């Protein structure tokens, strides 16, 4: 096999906000070319963890190494090495598909000729080449996700983060999205780190699953290992055994309110 250094290595990572502990001393590692899933209910700490890995949030304590670099110290080195699809869309609706990708290419310093070539390849890969000059505001949710995937790959990152990527998408689009991701992982060896609360996604797609709840990692392993560990037939059963059947008490945050406004538009 190739070199043993992990893509992502996290040790005792903690994040506290005003006395509330969102992420509680978690540790894990993701090997190169692995597909790793963070599975947990809403409010478990999944998005907070991704934000810390991707330089958007500073940890309270603990250590992180993404592609060998520390996100709190070598921010730009870390940023060059990953691509990301956020939970909420981060495209510019008033620009065309092509312009959105071109923009990304400039920010990531991809030289013009290479940029133009890759934009074409990637738009064809996600089957949006015929819509390259359409404004993104005319795209459906699924199309926007596909565009974001193609954008995140433009600079050929080693790691690809996806934060709850299939929320709100129909089964056909979901299937298609995961097909692209698995294809990428197999062909290019890109490490995939995704968060989800859809158990069947974790079961079907991931090599390793870490179950997270209340900011703690309850257990991790391959889906089959987890089923054996919890003496369950399905991963769903394992999950419910580990996290319980209670509905989570959640606080509506400002972001939730904004999401509701957005959906009404």
């Amino acid at each position, binding site marked *: 096999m190739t070199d043993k250094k992990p893509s992502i290595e996290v040790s005792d990572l903690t994040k506290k906000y005003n006395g509330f502990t969102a992420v509680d001393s978690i540790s894990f590692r993701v090997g190169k070319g692995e597909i790793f899933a963070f599975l947990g209910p809403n409010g478990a700490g999944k998005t907070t963890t991704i*934000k810390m890995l*991707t*330089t*958007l*949030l*500073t940890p309270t304590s603990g250590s992180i190494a993404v592609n060998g670099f520390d996100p709190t110290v070598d*921010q*730009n*080195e870390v*940023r*060059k090495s990953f691509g*990301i699809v*956020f939970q*909420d*869309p*981060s*495209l*510019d*609706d*008033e*620009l065309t598909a092509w*312009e959105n990708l071109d*923009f*990304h290419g*400039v*920010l*990531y*310093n991809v030289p013009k000729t290479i940029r133009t070539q890759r934009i074409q390849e990637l738009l064809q890969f996600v089957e949006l080449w015929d819509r390259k000059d359409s*404004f993104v505001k005319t795209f459906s949710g699924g199309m926007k996700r596909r565009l974001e995937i193609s*954008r995140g790959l433009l600079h050929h990152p080693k790691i690809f983060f996806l934060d709850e990527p299939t929320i709100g998408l129909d089964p056909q689009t979901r299937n298609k999205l995961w097909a692209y991701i698995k294809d990428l992982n197999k062909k290019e060896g890109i490490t995939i780190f995704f968060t989800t609360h859809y158990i069947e996604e974790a079961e079907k797609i991931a090599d390793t699953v870490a179950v997270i709840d209340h900011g703690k990692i309850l257990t991790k392993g391959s889906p089959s290992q987890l089923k054996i560990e919890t003496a369950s037939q399905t991963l769903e059963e394992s999950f419910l055994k580990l996290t319980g059947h209670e509905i989570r008490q959640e606080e509506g945050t*400002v*972001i939730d309110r*904004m999401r509701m*406004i*957005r959906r009404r538009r």
Partner: protein
Amino acid sequence: MTRIMNTIYILWLRQLKRFIRSKARILGSLGQPILFLFALGFGFGPTFAKAGEGNYLQFLAPGVIAMSVLFSAVFFGIEIIWDRQFGFLKETLVAPVSRFHIMLGRTLGGATVSCVQGLIVLLISTIVGFRPVSILGVLLSLVIMFLGAVVFTALGTAIASKLEDMHAFQLIMNFLIMPLFFLSGALFPLKNLPPALDTITHLNPMTFAVDGLRATLTGTSHFGALTDFIVLLGIAIVFLSIGSYLFSKIEL
């Protein structure tokens, strides 16, 4: 170096593209200035003249132009609140680019767009009867407009970097932006004011933008064009520094 220029340029270009492509927004933003010009310009005209102050439309137009630049610039800075959760901003924050360059590109783009809006209002005011004193004056007024726009875009960015809630924005509009506009000499001369009002207007950056526009477009001014320019330049540098510091501290 080219890398930095490319980044700033593309962020600047993006603001322009967005502006040109939103006809509804352009038209909408002209409503208030036109209303002010008509209602106040023609409404107060006779009284103003009778008080010996001359043509009110000539006096008012620079104030209204400044108003459109101010509002456009602040709104633009405030856009960050929405953008940071649902928009493009996250993409820029995660890119291997310095936050300062992102902020600079955005601010310059926003300021340019605000100037274009100011120019459109200037054009409309000439249709209504306003007469700028010279072409050179118009060109110089662009400099003042741009500086004023930078000041207020940076202010909007600074405020938005600290806010998470769109509703707080309403508060800011009513308790900061409106007072800045109304207490700036845009609508009334700065002579013989009661002491409290006098102090406030002198501390308001908007006052110097309005006065600068009046100086370059109509040849009359309270402080002198050069003073206005220097004060605005100083404030622009301070606000840009504060704005980019706060912007760099944004955590999602």
